[in-house]
Protein backbone atom coordinates (compact mmCIF):
# COMPACT_ATOMS: atom_id res chain seq x y z
CA UNK A 1 0.00 0.00 0.00
CA UNK A 2 1.32 3.42 -0.87
CA UNK A 3 -0.66 4.84 2.08
CA UNK A 4 1.72 3.12 4.47
CA UNK A 5 4.53 5.49 3.70
CA UNK A 6 2.54 8.67 3.13
CA UNK A 7 3.89 11.42 5.33
CA UNK A 8 1.11 12.93 7.44
CA UNK A 9 3.19 15.47 9.33
CA UNK A 10 6.44 17.02 8.31
CA UNK A 11 8.44 19.70 10.10
CA UNK A 12 11.26 21.01 7.95
CA UNK A 13 14.15 22.96 9.52
CA UNK A 14 11.88 24.65 12.05
CA UNK A 15 13.67 27.37 14.02
CA UNK A 16 12.31 29.70 16.65
CA UNK A 17 13.82 32.23 19.00
CA UNK A 18 12.10 34.36 21.59
CA UNK A 19 12.99 37.94 22.42
CA UNK A 20 12.70 39.00 26.00
CA UNK A 21 14.04 42.25 27.45
CA UNK A 22 16.30 42.99 24.50
CA UNK A 23 17.89 39.53 24.58
CA UNK A 24 17.10 36.69 22.24
CA UNK A 25 16.75 33.09 23.35
CA UNK A 26 16.97 30.49 20.62
CA UNK A 27 14.50 27.71 21.49
CA UNK A 28 14.45 25.55 18.38
CA UNK A 29 17.43 25.28 16.07
CA UNK A 30 16.45 23.71 12.76
CA UNK A 31 14.33 20.79 13.92
CA UNK A 32 13.05 18.40 11.27
CA UNK A 33 10.81 15.41 11.81
CA UNK A 34 8.18 13.33 10.05
CA UNK A 35 5.20 11.27 11.09
CA UNK A 36 3.95 8.79 8.50
CA UNK A 37 0.37 7.60 8.24
CA UNK A 38 -0.47 5.27 11.12
CA UNK A 39 2.86 5.81 12.80
CA UNK A 40 3.46 6.48 16.51
CA UNK A 41 6.35 8.92 16.81
CA UNK A 42 7.74 10.21 20.09
CA UNK A 43 9.72 13.31 20.91
CA UNK A 44 11.87 12.95 23.98
CA UNK A 45 14.06 15.61 25.47
CA UNK A 46 14.97 17.40 28.67
CA UNK A 47 12.52 19.85 30.24
CA UNK A 48 12.44 23.21 28.58
CA UNK A 49 13.89 21.84 25.36
CA UNK A 50 11.25 23.59 23.30
CA UNK A 51 8.94 20.62 22.75
CA UNK A 52 5.90 22.67 23.66
CA UNK A 53 7.01 25.45 21.34
CA UNK A 54 7.39 22.92 18.56
CA UNK A 55 3.86 21.67 19.29
CA UNK A 56 2.46 25.18 19.18
CA UNK A 57 4.18 25.72 15.83
CA UNK A 58 2.77 22.44 14.48
CA UNK A 59 -0.67 23.49 15.77
CA UNK A 60 -0.33 26.82 13.97
CA UNK A 61 -0.67 28.79 17.20
CA UNK A 62 2.82 30.12 16.67
CA UNK A 63 4.84 30.85 13.53
CA UNK A 64 8.40 29.59 13.17
CA UNK A 65 11.12 32.13 12.37
CA UNK A 66 12.12 29.84 9.54
CA UNK A 67 11.19 26.38 8.32
CA UNK A 68 7.86 24.91 7.22
CA UNK A 69 5.16 22.64 8.58
CA UNK A 70 3.34 20.30 6.20
CA UNK A 71 0.30 18.34 7.35
CA UNK A 72 -1.51 15.88 5.12
CA UNK A 73 0.78 16.87 2.22
CA UNK A 74 -0.11 20.58 2.39
CA UNK A 75 1.93 23.50 3.71
CA UNK A 76 0.12 24.55 6.89
CA UNK A 77 2.79 26.77 8.46
CA UNK A 78 1.04 29.20 10.82
CA UNK A 79 -2.36 27.68 10.05
CA UNK A 80 -4.59 26.29 12.77
CA UNK A 81 -7.11 23.49 12.69
CA UNK A 82 -5.10 20.61 11.22
CA UNK A 83 -4.29 18.61 14.34
CA UNK A 84 -6.10 17.14 17.29
CA UNK A 85 -4.56 17.69 20.68
CA UNK A 86 -4.29 16.06 24.07
CA UNK A 87 -2.59 18.26 26.67
CA UNK A 88 -0.94 17.27 29.94
CA UNK A 89 -3.92 18.46 31.97
CA UNK A 90 -7.21 16.92 30.81
CA UNK A 91 -8.61 20.41 30.00
CA UNK A 92 -12.22 19.28 29.86
CA UNK A 93 -14.93 21.93 30.04
CA UNK A 94 -16.38 21.75 33.55
CA UNK A 95 -19.82 22.91 32.34
CA UNK A 96 -20.25 20.13 29.78
CA UNK A 97 -20.97 16.48 30.43
CA UNK A 98 -18.31 13.95 29.50
CA UNK A 99 -20.20 13.22 26.28
CA UNK A 100 -20.75 16.93 25.66
CA UNK A 101 -17.03 17.55 25.94
CA UNK A 102 -16.24 15.08 23.20
CA UNK A 103 -19.10 16.30 21.04
CA UNK A 104 -17.90 19.92 21.44
CA UNK A 105 -14.41 19.06 20.21
CA UNK A 106 -15.90 17.24 17.22
CA UNK A 107 -18.12 20.24 16.50
CA UNK A 108 -15.06 22.52 16.42
CA UNK A 109 -13.64 20.13 13.80
CA UNK A 110 -16.81 20.58 11.74
CA UNK A 111 -18.69 17.38 12.62
CA UNK A 112 -22.47 17.92 12.73
CA UNK A 113 -24.11 18.05 16.14
CA UNK A 114 -26.15 14.85 15.86
CA UNK A 115 -23.25 12.88 14.42
CA UNK A 116 -20.87 14.23 17.08
CA UNK A 117 -23.26 13.22 19.88
CA UNK A 118 -23.73 9.78 18.36
CA UNK A 119 -20.01 9.11 18.00
CA UNK A 120 -19.26 10.40 21.49
CA UNK A 121 -21.91 8.16 23.08
CA UNK A 122 -20.90 5.12 21.06
CA UNK A 123 -17.18 5.45 21.83
CA UNK A 124 -17.67 6.16 25.52
CA UNK A 125 -19.66 2.95 25.68
CA UNK A 126 -16.89 1.14 23.83
CA UNK A 127 -14.16 2.20 26.26
CA UNK A 128 -16.31 1.38 29.28
CA UNK A 129 -17.19 4.96 30.22
CA UNK A 130 -20.80 4.78 29.04
CA UNK A 131 -21.94 4.95 32.66
CA UNK A 132 -20.45 8.40 33.20
CA UNK A 133 -21.31 9.86 29.78
CA UNK A 134 -23.83 12.25 31.32
CA UNK A 135 -21.74 13.21 34.37
CA UNK A 136 -19.69 16.36 34.74
CA UNK A 137 -15.93 15.73 34.34
CA UNK A 138 -15.22 16.65 37.99
CA UNK A 139 -16.68 13.35 39.21
CA UNK A 140 -14.09 11.42 37.17
CA UNK A 141 -10.65 10.38 38.43
CA UNK A 142 -7.55 11.85 36.78
CA UNK A 143 -6.99 8.69 34.73
CA UNK A 144 -10.60 8.60 33.53
CA UNK A 145 -10.44 12.27 32.58
CA UNK A 146 -7.35 11.53 30.49
CA UNK A 147 -9.17 8.68 28.73
CA UNK A 148 -11.91 11.12 27.82
CA UNK A 149 -9.29 13.62 26.70
CA UNK A 150 -7.63 10.95 24.54
CA UNK A 151 -10.95 9.90 23.03
CA UNK A 152 -11.67 13.52 22.20
CA UNK A 153 -8.37 13.73 20.33
CA UNK A 154 -8.86 10.35 18.66
CA UNK A 155 -12.31 11.16 17.30
CA UNK A 156 -11.51 14.55 15.83
CA UNK A 157 -11.18 14.05 12.08
CA UNK A 158 -7.68 15.47 11.83
CA UNK A 159 -4.55 14.21 10.06
CA UNK A 160 -2.34 14.06 13.16
CA UNK A 161 -2.89 13.55 16.88
CA UNK A 162 -0.52 15.57 19.04
CA UNK A 163 -0.20 14.22 22.58
CA UNK A 164 1.74 16.54 24.87
CA UNK A 165 3.03 14.61 27.93
CA UNK A 166 -0.48 13.29 28.54
CA UNK A 167 0.47 11.12 31.53
CA UNK A 168 2.96 13.40 33.27
CA UNK A 169 0.45 14.56 35.89
CA UNK A 170 -0.74 11.06 36.84
CA UNK A 171 0.49 8.91 39.71
CA UNK A 172 2.79 6.00 38.83
CA UNK A 173 0.15 3.24 38.99
CA UNK A 174 -2.41 5.14 36.94
CA UNK A 175 0.33 6.07 34.53
CA UNK A 176 1.33 2.45 33.87
CA UNK A 177 -2.34 1.60 33.47
CA UNK A 178 -2.87 4.44 31.00
CA UNK A 179 0.19 3.50 28.95
CA UNK A 180 -1.13 -0.04 28.49
CA UNK A 181 -4.58 1.32 27.66
CA UNK A 182 -3.21 3.83 25.13
CA UNK A 183 -1.10 1.11 23.53
CA UNK A 184 -4.14 -1.14 23.04
CA UNK A 185 -6.29 1.73 21.75
CA UNK A 186 -3.64 2.91 19.33
CA UNK A 187 -2.78 -0.54 18.00
CA UNK A 188 -6.45 -0.99 17.19
CA UNK A 189 -6.96 2.45 15.59
CA UNK A 190 -3.50 3.07 14.07
CA UNK A 191 -3.72 6.83 13.89
CA UNK A 192 -0.77 9.09 13.11
CA UNK A 193 0.54 10.25 16.47
CA UNK A 194 3.17 12.69 17.62
CA UNK A 195 3.80 12.07 21.31
CA UNK A 196 5.89 14.02 23.77
CA UNK A 197 7.26 12.50 26.96
CA UNK A 198 10.04 12.71 29.50
CA UNK A 199 9.93 9.00 30.18
CA UNK A 200 12.30 6.85 28.15
CA UNK A 201 10.42 3.64 29.08
CA UNK A 202 7.15 5.19 27.98
CA UNK A 203 8.69 6.20 24.67
CA UNK A 204 10.11 2.71 24.05
CA UNK A 205 6.86 1.01 25.08
CA UNK A 206 4.65 2.98 22.76
CA UNK A 207 6.54 4.26 19.73
CA UNK A 208 7.57 3.17 16.28
CA UNK A 209 10.22 5.87 16.14
CA UNK A 210 11.78 8.22 18.67
CA UNK A 211 13.38 11.60 18.09
CA UNK A 212 15.81 12.51 20.86
CA UNK A 213 16.03 16.28 21.28
CA UNK A 214 18.86 18.19 22.91
CA UNK A 215 18.41 20.79 25.63
CA UNK A 216 17.46 24.25 24.44
CA UNK A 217 18.10 25.37 21.74
CA UNK A 218 16.74 22.06 20.52
CA UNK A 219 18.23 20.03 17.72
CA UNK A 220 17.45 16.42 16.87
CA UNK A 221 20.29 14.42 18.42
CA UNK A 222 19.21 11.09 17.01
CA UNK A 223 16.33 9.33 15.32
CA UNK A 224 15.76 5.84 16.70
CA UNK A 225 13.71 3.05 15.11
CA UNK A 226 12.04 1.01 17.84
CA UNK A 227 12.37 -2.62 16.74
CA UNK A 228 9.77 -4.34 18.96
CA UNK A 229 6.96 -6.20 17.19
CA UNK A 230 3.33 -5.09 17.19
CA UNK A 231 1.09 -5.79 18.96
CA UNK A 232 3.59 -4.98 21.64
CA UNK A 233 3.78 -7.20 24.70
CA UNK A 234 3.39 -5.62 28.13
CA UNK A 235 6.72 -7.14 29.23
CA UNK A 236 8.68 -5.76 26.30
CA UNK A 237 10.91 -4.02 28.85
CA UNK A 238 12.43 -7.40 29.70
CA UNK A 239 14.09 -7.64 26.29
CA UNK A 240 17.82 -6.93 26.13
CA UNK A 241 17.28 -4.55 23.21
CA UNK A 242 14.99 -2.49 25.42
CA UNK A 243 17.71 -1.99 28.01
CA UNK A 244 20.27 -1.22 25.33
CA UNK A 245 18.07 1.42 23.70
CA UNK A 246 17.23 2.87 27.08
CA UNK A 247 20.86 3.42 27.97
CA UNK A 248 21.57 4.77 24.49
CA UNK A 249 18.86 7.43 24.94
CA UNK A 250 19.95 8.13 28.51
CA UNK A 251 23.47 8.79 27.35
CA UNK A 252 22.27 11.05 24.57
CA UNK A 253 20.16 13.08 26.98
CA UNK A 254 22.93 13.24 29.56
CA UNK A 255 25.39 14.34 26.90
CA UNK A 256 22.96 17.00 25.66
CA UNK A 257 22.69 18.33 29.19
CA UNK A 258 26.44 18.24 29.74
CA UNK A 259 26.89 20.36 26.65
CA UNK A 260 24.81 23.04 28.34
CA UNK A 261 26.64 22.55 31.62
CA UNK A 262 23.46 21.51 33.41
Amino acid at each position, binding site marked *: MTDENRVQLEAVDVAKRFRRGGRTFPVLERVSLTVRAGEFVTLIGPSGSGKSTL*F*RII*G*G*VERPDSGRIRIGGRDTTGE*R*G*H*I*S*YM*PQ*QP*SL*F*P*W*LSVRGNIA*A*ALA*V*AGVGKAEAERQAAEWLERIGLGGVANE*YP*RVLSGGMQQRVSFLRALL*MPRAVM*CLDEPFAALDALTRADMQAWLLRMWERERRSVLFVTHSIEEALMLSDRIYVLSASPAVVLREIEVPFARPRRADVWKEPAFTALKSEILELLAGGNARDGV
Partner: protein
Amino acid sequence: MENKWRRALPPAAAIVLFAAVWQAVCALFDIDPWTLPSPAQIARTMAGDAPRLMSQMGATLRLTFEGLALGVSVGVVSAVLFHWIPAVRSALSPILVMAQNVPVIALGPLLIVWFGFGLTPKLILLVLVCYFPVAWSMMTGLGQAEPQLREYMAMIGAGRWETLLRLELPASLPYFFSGLKITAAYSISSAIVAEWLGGSEGIGHYLVLKEKGFDTPAVFAAIVCIVAGSLLFYGLAALLERLIIRWRPEPQRRGGGAG
Protein backbone atom coordinates in the same frame (compact mmCIF):
# COMPACT_ATOMS: atom_id res chain seq x y z
CA MET B 1 -34.98 19.63 53.65
CA GLU B 2 -34.98 19.84 57.45
CA ASN B 3 -31.62 21.61 57.20
CA LYS B 4 -33.08 24.22 54.90
CA TRP B 5 -35.84 25.07 57.39
CA ARG B 6 -33.37 25.22 60.21
CA ARG B 7 -31.27 27.69 58.24
CA ALA B 8 -34.30 29.89 57.54
CA LEU B 9 -35.33 29.94 61.20
CA PRO B 10 -32.88 32.52 62.69
CA PRO B 11 -33.54 35.28 60.12
CA ALA B 12 -37.31 34.65 60.26
CA ALA B 13 -37.25 34.82 64.04
CA ALA B 14 -35.25 38.04 63.88
CA ILE B 15 -37.81 39.65 61.57
CA VAL B 16 -40.74 38.57 63.74
CA LEU B 17 -38.96 39.84 66.84
CA PHE B 18 -38.20 43.14 65.14
CA ALA B 19 -41.87 43.62 64.15
CA ALA B 20 -43.00 42.67 67.66
CA VAL B 21 -40.67 45.19 69.32
CA TRP B 22 -41.80 47.82 66.82
CA GLN B 23 -45.46 47.07 67.55
CA ALA B 24 -44.81 47.15 71.32
CA VAL B 25 -42.92 50.47 71.15
CA CYS B 26 -45.75 52.06 69.14
CA ALA B 27 -48.36 50.83 71.64
CA LEU B 28 -46.33 51.52 74.77
CA PHE B 29 -45.37 55.10 73.96
CA ASP B 30 -48.60 55.77 72.09
CA ILE B 31 -46.75 57.04 69.00
CA ASP B 32 -48.80 58.98 66.48
CA PRO B 33 -49.24 56.96 63.24
CA TRP B 34 -48.32 60.15 61.36
CA THR B 35 -44.83 59.88 62.91
CA LEU B 36 -44.38 56.11 63.01
CA PRO B 37 -47.19 53.71 62.14
CA SER B 38 -47.15 50.30 63.80
CA PRO B 39 -46.69 47.14 61.70
CA ALA B 40 -50.38 46.33 62.25
CA GLN B 41 -51.43 49.72 60.92
CA ILE B 42 -49.18 49.31 57.89
CA ALA B 43 -50.68 45.90 57.25
CA ARG B 44 -54.23 47.33 57.54
CA THR B 45 -53.35 50.14 55.12
CA MET B 46 -51.91 47.62 52.67
CA ALA B 47 -54.98 45.45 52.87
CA GLY B 48 -57.29 48.44 52.42
CA ASP B 49 -55.35 49.87 49.48
CA ALA B 50 -54.47 46.50 47.98
CA PRO B 51 -55.95 46.93 44.48
CA ARG B 52 -54.23 50.26 43.96
CA LEU B 53 -50.91 49.06 45.40
CA MET B 54 -51.07 46.00 43.19
CA SER B 55 -51.65 47.91 39.99
CA GLN B 56 -48.98 50.50 40.85
CA MET B 57 -46.59 47.71 41.77
CA GLY B 58 -47.37 46.02 38.46
CA ALA B 59 -46.37 49.17 36.58
CA THR B 60 -43.14 49.47 38.59
CA LEU B 61 -42.21 45.83 38.11
CA ARG B 62 -42.84 46.12 34.37
CA LEU B 63 -40.65 49.21 34.10
CA THR B 64 -37.92 47.58 36.19
CA PHE B 65 -38.02 44.41 34.17
CA GLU B 66 -37.81 46.26 30.86
CA GLY B 67 -34.98 48.47 32.06
CA LEU B 68 -33.14 45.54 33.54
CA ALA B 69 -33.49 43.42 30.41
CA LEU B 70 -32.33 46.26 28.20
CA GLY B 71 -29.47 47.27 30.50
CA VAL B 72 -28.25 43.69 30.88
CA SER B 73 -28.37 43.10 27.11
CA VAL B 74 -26.40 46.26 26.40
CA GLY B 75 -24.01 45.26 29.19
CA VAL B 76 -23.36 41.79 27.78
CA VAL B 77 -22.87 43.00 24.22
CA SER B 78 -20.49 45.75 25.25
CA ALA B 79 -18.59 43.38 27.54
CA VAL B 80 -17.90 41.17 24.52
CA LEU B 81 -16.85 44.20 22.46
CA PHE B 82 -14.53 45.42 25.23
CA HIS B 83 -13.13 41.94 25.55
CA TRP B 84 -12.42 41.63 21.85
CA ILE B 85 -11.18 45.17 21.23
CA PRO B 86 -8.99 46.36 24.12
CA ALA B 87 -8.58 49.77 22.44
CA VAL B 88 -12.33 50.38 22.76
CA ARG B 89 -12.21 49.31 26.39
CA SER B 90 -9.35 51.63 27.32
CA ALA B 91 -10.93 54.49 25.36
CA LEU B 92 -14.39 54.17 26.88
CA SER B 93 -13.80 52.90 30.39
CA PRO B 94 -12.90 56.28 31.97
CA ILE B 95 -16.04 57.82 30.46
CA LEU B 96 -18.17 54.94 31.73
CA VAL B 97 -16.69 55.12 35.20
CA MET B 98 -17.31 58.87 35.27
CA ALA B 99 -20.85 58.43 34.01
CA GLN B 100 -21.37 55.86 36.75
CA ASN B 101 -20.54 58.55 39.30
CA VAL B 102 -23.22 61.00 38.14
CA PRO B 103 -25.97 60.70 40.76
CA VAL B 104 -29.29 59.40 39.52
CA ILE B 105 -30.96 62.31 41.27
CA ALA B 106 -29.00 64.75 39.08
CA LEU B 107 -29.34 62.75 35.87
CA GLY B 108 -33.09 62.08 36.16
CA PRO B 109 -34.31 65.66 35.82
CA LEU B 110 -31.95 66.23 32.88
CA LEU B 111 -33.32 63.17 31.09
CA ILE B 112 -36.83 64.49 31.65
CA VAL B 113 -35.82 67.86 30.18
CA TRP B 114 -34.41 66.07 27.13
CA PHE B 115 -36.96 63.30 26.62
CA GLY B 116 -40.18 64.47 28.29
CA PHE B 117 -42.29 62.70 30.86
CA GLY B 118 -42.88 59.47 28.97
CA LEU B 119 -41.31 56.06 29.32
CA THR B 120 -38.09 56.94 27.46
CA PRO B 121 -36.23 58.92 30.17
CA LYS B 122 -37.14 56.31 32.81
CA LEU B 123 -35.89 53.48 30.65
CA ILE B 124 -32.67 55.33 29.87
CA LEU B 125 -32.10 55.95 33.56
CA LEU B 126 -32.63 52.29 34.37
CA VAL B 127 -30.40 51.12 31.54
CA LEU B 128 -27.63 53.42 32.75
CA VAL B 129 -27.93 52.05 36.27
CA CYS B 130 -28.24 48.38 35.29
CA TYR B 131 -25.57 48.45 32.64
CA PHE B 132 -22.43 49.01 34.63
CA PRO B 133 -22.27 46.12 37.13
CA VAL B 134 -23.22 43.61 34.46
CA ALA B 135 -20.83 44.94 31.81
CA TRP B 136 -17.91 45.14 34.21
CA SER B 137 -18.30 41.78 35.92
CA MET B 138 -18.97 40.10 32.58
CA MET B 139 -15.92 41.68 31.00
CA THR B 140 -13.79 40.44 33.89
CA GLY B 141 -15.33 36.98 33.54
CA LEU B 142 -14.62 36.76 29.79
CA GLY B 143 -10.91 37.20 30.52
CA GLN B 144 -10.94 34.65 33.33
CA ALA B 145 -11.29 31.45 31.30
CA GLU B 146 -8.66 28.95 32.39
CA PRO B 147 -5.41 29.41 30.41
CA GLN B 148 -5.10 25.68 29.73
CA LEU B 149 -8.61 25.56 28.23
CA ARG B 150 -7.74 28.61 26.15
CA GLU B 151 -4.57 26.89 24.96
CA TYR B 152 -6.55 23.75 24.13
CA MET B 153 -9.04 25.74 22.05
CA ALA B 154 -6.17 27.47 20.20
CA MET B 155 -4.40 24.18 19.53
CA ILE B 156 -7.45 22.54 17.99
CA GLY B 157 -7.99 25.61 15.84
CA ALA B 158 -11.11 27.13 17.38
CA GLY B 159 -11.84 30.60 16.00
CA ARG B 160 -12.83 33.72 17.89
CA TRP B 161 -16.57 33.00 17.84
CA GLU B 162 -16.09 29.38 18.72
CA THR B 163 -13.84 30.31 21.63
CA LEU B 164 -16.37 32.90 22.80
CA LEU B 165 -19.38 30.60 22.62
CA ARG B 166 -17.81 27.39 23.86
CA LEU B 167 -15.30 28.69 26.38
CA GLU B 168 -15.45 32.35 27.34
CA LEU B 169 -19.20 32.79 27.73
CA PRO B 170 -19.73 29.70 29.92
CA ALA B 171 -16.61 30.56 31.94
CA SER B 172 -17.91 34.10 32.50
CA LEU B 173 -21.36 33.03 33.75
CA PRO B 174 -20.47 33.03 37.47
CA TYR B 175 -19.14 36.59 37.08
CA PHE B 176 -22.16 37.60 35.02
CA PHE B 177 -24.53 36.37 37.71
CA SER B 178 -22.73 38.16 40.52
CA GLY B 179 -23.16 41.37 38.50
CA LEU B 180 -26.76 40.53 37.66
CA LYS B 181 -27.68 39.92 41.30
CA ILE B 182 -26.31 43.32 42.33
CA THR B 183 -28.10 45.01 39.44
CA ALA B 184 -31.35 43.15 40.04
CA ALA B 185 -31.37 44.04 43.73
CA TYR B 186 -31.13 47.77 43.23
CA SER B 187 -32.78 48.18 39.84
CA ILE B 188 -36.19 48.60 41.50
CA SER B 189 -34.94 51.49 43.67
CA SER B 190 -33.78 53.19 40.49
CA ALA B 191 -37.19 52.62 38.93
CA ILE B 192 -38.74 54.23 42.01
CA VAL B 193 -36.48 57.27 41.63
CA ALA B 194 -37.41 57.50 37.95
CA GLU B 195 -41.12 57.37 38.77
CA TRP B 196 -40.68 59.74 41.69
CA LEU B 197 -39.11 62.35 39.36
CA GLY B 198 -42.00 62.38 36.98
CA GLY B 199 -44.81 60.24 35.70
CA SER B 200 -48.29 59.19 36.50
CA GLU B 201 -48.03 55.60 37.61
CA GLY B 202 -45.91 53.19 39.62
CA ILE B 203 -45.04 52.86 43.28
CA GLY B 204 -42.67 55.82 42.98
CA HIS B 205 -45.58 58.01 41.88
CA TYR B 206 -47.78 56.57 44.68
CA LEU B 207 -45.00 57.41 47.15
CA VAL B 208 -44.93 61.05 46.00
CA LEU B 209 -48.70 61.40 46.41
CA LYS B 210 -48.76 59.79 49.86
CA GLU B 211 -45.79 61.79 51.12
CA LYS B 212 -47.42 65.02 49.98
CA GLY B 213 -50.58 63.95 51.80
CA PHE B 214 -48.63 63.08 54.99
CA ASP B 215 -50.13 59.60 54.80
CA THR B 216 -47.25 57.93 56.61
CA PRO B 217 -48.80 54.42 56.87
CA ALA B 218 -49.22 54.44 53.07
CA VAL B 219 -45.60 55.56 52.66
CA PHE B 220 -44.57 52.57 54.73
CA ALA B 221 -46.86 50.36 52.67
CA ALA B 222 -45.00 51.56 49.58
CA ILE B 223 -41.66 50.84 51.25
CA VAL B 224 -42.77 47.30 52.04
CA CYS B 225 -43.75 46.82 48.38
CA ILE B 226 -40.41 48.19 47.18
CA VAL B 227 -38.39 45.95 49.50
CA ALA B 228 -40.50 42.95 48.49
CA GLY B 229 -39.99 43.80 44.81
CA SER B 230 -36.25 44.14 45.31
CA LEU B 231 -36.09 40.76 47.04
CA LEU B 232 -38.19 39.29 44.25
CA PHE B 233 -35.76 40.47 41.57
CA TYR B 234 -32.75 39.33 43.54
CA GLY B 235 -34.40 35.99 44.17
CA LEU B 236 -35.18 35.54 40.47
CA ALA B 237 -31.58 36.32 39.53
CA ALA B 238 -30.29 33.86 42.16
CA LEU B 239 -32.76 31.21 40.98
CA LEU B 240 -31.67 31.69 37.38
CA GLU B 241 -28.06 31.32 38.48
CA ARG B 242 -28.81 28.06 40.23
CA LEU B 243 -30.69 26.72 37.23
CA ILE B 244 -27.98 27.63 34.75
CA ILE B 245 -24.75 27.05 36.66
CA ARG B 246 -25.18 23.43 37.61
CA TRP B 247 -21.67 22.16 37.08
CA ARG B 248 -20.20 23.62 40.25
CA PRO B 249 -20.06 21.29 43.21
CA GLU B 250 -22.74 22.02 45.82
CA PRO B 251 -21.14 24.39 48.36
CA GLN B 252 -20.44 22.65 51.65
CA ARG B 253 -22.35 24.47 54.37
CA ARG B 254 -21.04 24.84 57.86
CA GLY B 255 -22.49 22.13 60.06
CA GLY B 256 -24.43 20.56 57.17
CA GLY B 257 -23.17 17.15 56.14
CA ALA B 258 -25.19 16.57 52.98
CA GLY B 259 -23.78 18.13 49.79
